[in-house]
């Protein structure tokens, strides 16, 4: 096929090229480092420029809404880093860098060195989260490493005194930028650590350009912060500025004032907390005593303690009752027995055959001692004994005379002699 058979219009070809750019991924989001030249700001607000280096040039544009975010004034001759995409401007048949973000790159090689130092220090462990210590609740003294007479220092002092009026501050004045800064800062940290009361250190400086904060990226400063026997709070530049010293610190504050807030407790809070503890202590003790007292009362209130003699009285009364009962009982028994005995004695008396003796009756016994109840129980001329009231008579039977024939005859007790 002949070349002349494929005719493209300008538009077609341009669009093809545009498509090609669009399809190349790296060109859709790219960061380009170069020198600004022919930098012009249009009345529309759009920024037009060329980025170049030793060998090449690249047209660039930054539209108004993106250009508004620039934090510096772009000027021809400046080294910058531009972030954006490469596209084709069809109308002019040019490709250009559409820039969304741009920043100065004056420290290009310095930046690289920083990254390398950061990795090295990280490997040494200076940024290890495990190294970070908590700040003391009430430092006896607060050390401050910063430039004398600086706004940062007066901010720190103001905030510290507001929070804790009697705060003890020890300030080491150091150089915070320039070549002298790193050794000055290191020495400042050393000297402050020698004050035994210092329990926390604030190290910082106010805001500034990147170069001005550079001392806090120094390896010696980082190691001094990491080696500090006392916890360090850093406050370097603004919130968004992060230096290597910040990474090595125990705590990083956004500003010097913030650092003072972190390092210095609120006296009122501490006082309140202490008062509360004392209150709780007293209340708990009070309650403990009350518990004991309750137990005491509980025991004491039982009647045993209230009327200890009561028991004794009761017992005594019971004892008396019993005793009385006993006595009565005994008396009654004795009486009964006495009566019984008396009665028995009476009966006995009545039965006593010898009582009749007093009345003249006598008891006649034979030789064997057997009591004679019948004349037939003896024979004539037998010896009998006659018991009278006051003695005995030994007699001989002269004659026996049976008189009472109605009396039944005795069997087995003697002779049955019929007269």
């Amino acid at each position, binding site marked *: 096929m002949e070349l002349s058979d494929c005719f493209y219009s300008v538009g077609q070809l341009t669009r093809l090229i545009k498509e090609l750019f669009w399809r190349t991924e790296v060109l859709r989001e790219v960061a380009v480092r170069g020198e600004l030249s022919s930098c012009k700001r249009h009345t529309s607000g759009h920024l037009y420029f060329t980025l170049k280096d030793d060998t090449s040039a690249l047209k660039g544009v930054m539209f108004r809404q993106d250009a508004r975010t620039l934090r510096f004034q772009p000027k021809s001759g400046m080294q910058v880093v531009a972030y954006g995409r490469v596209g084709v401007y069809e109308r002019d048949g040019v490709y250009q860098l559409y820039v969304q973000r741009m920043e100065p790159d004056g420290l290009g090689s310095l930046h690289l060195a920083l990254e390398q130092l950061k990795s090295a220090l990280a490997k040494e462990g200076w940024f290890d989260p495990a190294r970070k210590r908590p700040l003391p609740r*009430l430092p006896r003294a607060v050390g401050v490493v910063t430039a*004398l007479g600086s706004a940062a220092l007066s901010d720190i*002092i103001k905030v510290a005194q507001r929070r804790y009026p009697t705060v003890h*501050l*020890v300030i080491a004045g150091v150089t915070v930028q320039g070549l002298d800064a790193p050794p000055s800062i290191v020495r400042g940290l050393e*000297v*402050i650590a020698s004050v035994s009361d210092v329990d926390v250190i604030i190290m910082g400086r106010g805001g500034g350009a990147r170069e001005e904060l550079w001392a806090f990226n120094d390896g010696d400063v980082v190691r001094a912060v990491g080696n500090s026997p006392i916890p360090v709070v850093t406050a370097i530049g603004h919130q968004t500025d992060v230096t290597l010293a910040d990474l090595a610190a125990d705590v990083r504050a956004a500003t010097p004032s913030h650092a003072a807030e972190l390092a210095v407790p609120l006296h009122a809070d501490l006082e309140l907390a202490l008062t509360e*503890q004392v209150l709780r*202590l007293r209340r708990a003790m009070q309650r*403990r005593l009350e518990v004991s007292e309750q137990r005491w009362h509980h025991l004491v209130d039982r009647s045993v303690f209230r009327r200890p003699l009561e028991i004794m009285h009761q017992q005594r009364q019971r004892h008396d009752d019993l005793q009385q009962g006993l006595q009565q009982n005994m008396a009654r028994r004795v009486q009964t027995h006495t009566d019984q005995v008396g009665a028995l004695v009476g009966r006995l008396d009545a039965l006593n055959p010898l009582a009749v003796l007093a009345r003249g009756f006598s008891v006649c016994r034979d030789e064997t001692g057997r009591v004679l109840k019948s004349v037939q129980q003896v024979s004539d001329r037998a010896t009998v004994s006659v018991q009278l009231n006051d003695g005995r008579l030994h007699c001989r039977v002269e004659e026996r005379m049976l008189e009472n024939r109605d009396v039944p005859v005795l069997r087995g007790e003697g002779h049955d002699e019929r007269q």
Partner: protein
Amino acid sequence: MNDNSQQGSFEQRVKRLEAIVKELEVGSASLEEALCLFEEGIALARALKEQLDGTERRIEQILEEGTLRPLEVEMDDET
């Protein structure tokens, strides 16, 4: 009973006081032990209060060679 109200950092002593209060509130100690704890707690609280109120306001500068001297500070008009 040792007087440890002077020993230890502020942090440690506050923690000890808090521990004493908790133990007393739980109420499991004997009366004797409770009294003992109470005494210790009060002594600690006193020492801590002293430390809180004690420090004189001091702003010093430490020089290169390590000597301390008072630092004059300009006070802002705002409180």
